[in-house]
């Protein structure tokens, strides 16, 4: 433990770690020291001069953000001289800041407003002309209004240090100094909008939200992003059941200040005009709307008939639906339809991973482990494209703890910029590359290994054996694609005990019923059984839905409650933010079909199903209080043997600007100039 010292702040005696920053020590002890440029976790700038404090025996005021505390220090943060300094600085700031708060998106959430309210002068003495420049659009999602900018450089650091993109810089000099984008008049970047979130004023605004609402008109619903598997919390700003923006205002999720383009903007598929809003039945003239009662009746009859005659079902679940929905669907299939033919599109070889780790406790890493590990090894994945939050965590680990980063990939990745060792290998030769690092890795204190679908089956078993041979604590992250891919596996949407895998269902010529929930297996494959009755639940008329006899309009993740499990096995709660007329949640649809069939599978309320999951699914006995308060509860699978599964394991290789089947329905993802993005092209962030 670091040396403890004693100091006095505003007459209060405080114990602190020697060398800690004064501003942090004060804040931890409930003493507010205002600052614009200081932002925890990013480099120090000492530029805004708001955190000036008085330190006895020091002639000049000192900035709290760069002053380390020392024993015996006597600090005043509320003396008249400090108050005058703050007031003076704010007065300076307002000289060129336009007072357009009534039309500024940031109004009501603006740190400058708050500071002036608390520490500023009641009247303005400035009677000169303000410096003015026109607002600029840097990308479909980023607008910059230079006069509002107070030059705190938070955006520059968030982009450079946080994202590793370095797309923002500082142009001009003096009072004309302003933030500039990397391509002269526009941005080419991740379009993550971190710069907008971190901006204390309304200088950077969101293309999708600007001039749409006042912050206080909205309800702020913290839920989990439905795109990739990282499980970031996104706070949806909702007015009249319409989502107007996504951001990270309270930084309460596992992702702290991180969000990518999808988490922040790609909620727009919810409102897409092609959303299904009524059940549909296939007719000679194509699909036509039909009532819920009729559709349920037709499906229930067909399912019951098939069950009675011992017919062959195929049930394919989703990577995006909740744990409760997946659990209930698996239960419905096994107990209601009496079938073992259950699967989902598997994107990572979790069965082999869990089996290979049999006998080890605590061998699966959390997102927090990625931030704290002494070393991280990334194999066969472009995290910045596919798992941007994991990539962010690794960068933060390097920035704050100088972790050793190793990359073994087929092309350049962003983690190379921080890498202790970067290895380029041919596809399929990843393991050999990893094995060549043995001596270096043995010298590490501990290690987290992150690997993509290149590592599966026997190769995966060899990787775990390799990890065992290092003689250091090793944890694993087996990458999967989507927001609840991990949960789909954990909830049993897999062809256990001789069931057919998804590809086997499609190629079986004698399939009687194909029941697809939130997946599009016929997008790139044909259904061999010509007489199969096809039922689909989805948001849109997918390729599979187009072949379905009955299609049910489903609610998206942003329109339901429940839980999802991210790539690291962290269980988090979805919170219903919006409502699209005519849709029902997948849980309710399955429940209604079951009810119509006269089955008793229990109550299909998310909380009730979760209770059952907690009691029956190994590792899911997670504390409800953690979930209820928006936290993440780590789950681990049964520490024992897992049988091998038939079928294909393959990542869809989505990029930062694609999201599987949702891609065509997000206007934002198609508008950003970088779309669709390419794997192994993001090693461009230079230091």
């Amino acid at each position, binding site marked *: 433990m670091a040396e403890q010292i004693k100091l006095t702040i505003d007459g209060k005696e405080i114990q602190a770690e020697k060398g800690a920053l004064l501003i942090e020590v004060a804040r931890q002890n409930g003493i507010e020291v205002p600052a614009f440029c200081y932002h925890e976790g990013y480099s120090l700038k000492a530029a805004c*001069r708001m955190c000036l404090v008085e330190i006895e025996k020091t002639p000049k005021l000192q900035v709290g953000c760069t002053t380390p505390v020392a024993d015996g220090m006597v600090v005043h943060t509320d003396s008249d001289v400090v108050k005058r300094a703050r007031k003076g600085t704010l007065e300076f700031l307002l000289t060129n800041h336009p007072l357009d708060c009534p039309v500024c998106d940031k109004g009501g959430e603006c740190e400058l407003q708050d500071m002036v309210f608390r520490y500023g002068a009641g009247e303005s003495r400035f009677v000169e002309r303000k410096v003015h420049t026109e607002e600029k659009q840097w990308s479909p999602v980023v607008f910059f209004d230079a006069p509002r900018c107070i030059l705190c450089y938070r955006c520059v650091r968030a982009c450079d240090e946080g994202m590793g993109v370095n797309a923002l810089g500082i142009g001009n000099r003096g009072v004309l100094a302003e933030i500039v984008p990397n391509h002269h008049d526009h941005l080419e970047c991740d379009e993550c909008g971190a710069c907008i979130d971190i901006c204390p004023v309304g200088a950077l605004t969101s293309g999708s939200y600007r001039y749409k609402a006042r912050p206080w008109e909205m309800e702020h619903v913290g839920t989990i992003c439905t795109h990739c598997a990282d499980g970031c919390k996104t706070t949806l700003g909702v007015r009249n059941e319409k989502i107007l923006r996504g951001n990270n205002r309270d930084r309460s999720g596992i992702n702290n200040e991180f969000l990518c383009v999808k988490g922040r903007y790609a909620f727009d598929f919810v409102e897409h005009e092609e959303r299904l809003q009524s059940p549909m039945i296939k007719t000679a003239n194509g699909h036509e709307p039909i009532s819920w009662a009729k559709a349920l009746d037709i499906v229930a009859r067909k399912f019951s008939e098939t069950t009675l005659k011992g017919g062959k079902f195929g049930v394919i679940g989703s990577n995006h639906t909740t744990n409760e929905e997946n659990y209930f669907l698996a239960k419905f299939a096994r107990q209601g339809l009496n079938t073992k033919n259950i699967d989902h599109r598997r994107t990572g070889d979790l069965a082999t991973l869990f089996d290979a780790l049999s006998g080890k406790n605590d061998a699966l890493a959390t997102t927090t482990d990625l931030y704290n590990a002494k070393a991280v090894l990334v194999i066969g994945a472009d995290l910045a494209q596919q798992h941007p939050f994991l990539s962010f965590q690794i960068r933060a680990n390097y920035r704050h703890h100088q972790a050793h980063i190793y990359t073994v990939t087929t092309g350049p990745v962003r983690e190379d910029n921080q890498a202790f060792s970067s290895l380029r290998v041919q596809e399929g030769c990843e393991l050999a590359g990893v094995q060549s690092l043995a001596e270096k890795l043995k010298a590490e204190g501990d290690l987290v290994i992150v690997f993509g679908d290149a590592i599966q089956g026997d190769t995966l078993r060899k990787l775990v054996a390799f990890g065992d041979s290092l003689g250091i604590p090793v944890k694993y992250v087996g990458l999967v694609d989507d927001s609840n891919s991990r949960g789909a596996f954990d909830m049993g949407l897999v062809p256990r005990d001789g069931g057919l895998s998804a590809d086997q269902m499609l190629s079986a010529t004698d399939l009687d019923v194909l029941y697809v929930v939130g997946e599009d297996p016929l997008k790139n494959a044909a259904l061999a059984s010509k007489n199969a009755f096809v039922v689909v639940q989805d948001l849109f008329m997918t390729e599979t839905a187009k072949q379905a006899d009955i299609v049910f309009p489903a609610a998206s993740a942003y329109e339901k409650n429940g839980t999802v499990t991210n790539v690291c096995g962290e269980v988090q709660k979805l919170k219903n933010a919006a409502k699209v007329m005519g849709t029902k949640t997948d849980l309710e649809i399955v429940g209604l079909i079951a009810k119509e069939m006269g089955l008793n599978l229990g109550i299909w309320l998310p909380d009730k199903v979760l209770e059952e999951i907690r009691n029956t699914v190994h590792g899911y006995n997670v504390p409800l209080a953690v979930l209820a308060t928006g936290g993440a509860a780590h789950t681990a699978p049964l520490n024992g043997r897992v049988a091998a599964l038939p079928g294909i394991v393959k990542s869809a290789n989505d990029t930062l600007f694609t999201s599987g089947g949702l891609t065509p329905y997000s206007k934002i993802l198609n508008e950003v100039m970088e779309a669709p993005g390419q794997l192994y092209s993001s090693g461009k962030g230079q230091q």
Partner: protein
Amino acid sequence: MAKVLFNQPSPLETKVISQRFVLEGSETLDVYLANDGFKAFLKAKEMTPEAIIEEVKTSGLRGRGGAGFPTGMKWSFVPRNHPKPRVIVVNADESEPGCCKDRLLIEYDPHQLIEGILIASLAVDAHVGYIYVRGEYRYLITKMEQAIDEAYKRGYLGDNVAGTGWKFDLTVHTGAGAYECGEETALLDSLEGKRGVPRMKPPFPAVAGAWGMPTLLNNVETYSSVPAIIRDGGATYAAHGTPKNGGTRLLCLSGHVNKPGVYEIPLGYPMMKAINDLGGGMRGGKKLKAVVPGGSSCPVLTAPECDIPMDYDSLAKAGSMLGAGGMVVLDEDTDMVGFALRVMRFYQHESCGWCIPCREGTTWLRKILQRFYDGHGRKEDIPMIGELSKNMLGRTFCALGDAAAMPTISIIEKFRDEFERYLERTTVAV
């Protein structure tokens, strides 16, 4: 045939570092060698680094770039046993309004500067050096490069300096127009190819300077003073000045005097003597109104305050600074409002924009002073100019905010009546 200099030397000068200026071909190595050149380096080569630094301490030499930090002490801060190589950097970014002395040291005696750098390299065990020259001095960059080329060719730079086996490489690096790069850490960022924004301290350049390496950074005149100190002994050099203010320095005399020019004088030289004798008295027989003693950032002195010796301590006592030797003389007709405006325009133009008080403070003050100057001043502006300046003073990231505030505060306090008289005018006479 006498060489034509920018200004003729004065018999009142004490020539130590400018003694070769008058010589024909003074910029060549031959003339330098024929006139005591490299004696000091060879002497220093036989001394320990500690002894060199001790000699510089004895000389009383203080940084000639403006801050006046004791040079020997600065040299002693550079860790010679550091795992990273040491770097010598020369600040030739002479930009303080009123100062034009480093130009002459490079133009007339570049080898003296090279020798000073080499002696410093022995003291801190450095083998590489950079002379950062402001971009406007392009012709001097060319001259300096010629001198360096000559020194390399003749074995006074490179792998075997003066046959001693000492290795040293020297490079001239151009700036591109930014006063702020005269601040040592801004200069280092500029040398690294970045915007000239000052760095946070600590770490100080002595420990982590250019490219994170221990760096010795001094002004051109400071390095140029070193050969004489080592050659003749620190005590001899110190004896030119007054106690605690050793040696000579180049005074850049400008403004309303009959004979403006750059003159070498001992520290402690009386200010009035500089005006009346060196400078040949006030131009047109006018009365003295004020003096900017060491460059535009120094608080101005009124005529009655000018009866002082020019050394660091006396000027500090008078509430101003010796600065970088730029003494600007103002006669009775000088419009102090216009003068204050011009000073603030300069700092506003040169503010790097990094911190709020300097960026916004200089801009606001410039606007107020311009409005005032244009005849639209208000009574309440006068105290506000002082108050806003004080809101910058001591609160900015680097000293540029202070440099803008200090002269302004002194002018508004000492010449308040002129501001008040402005209120009675509606238009301004040019």
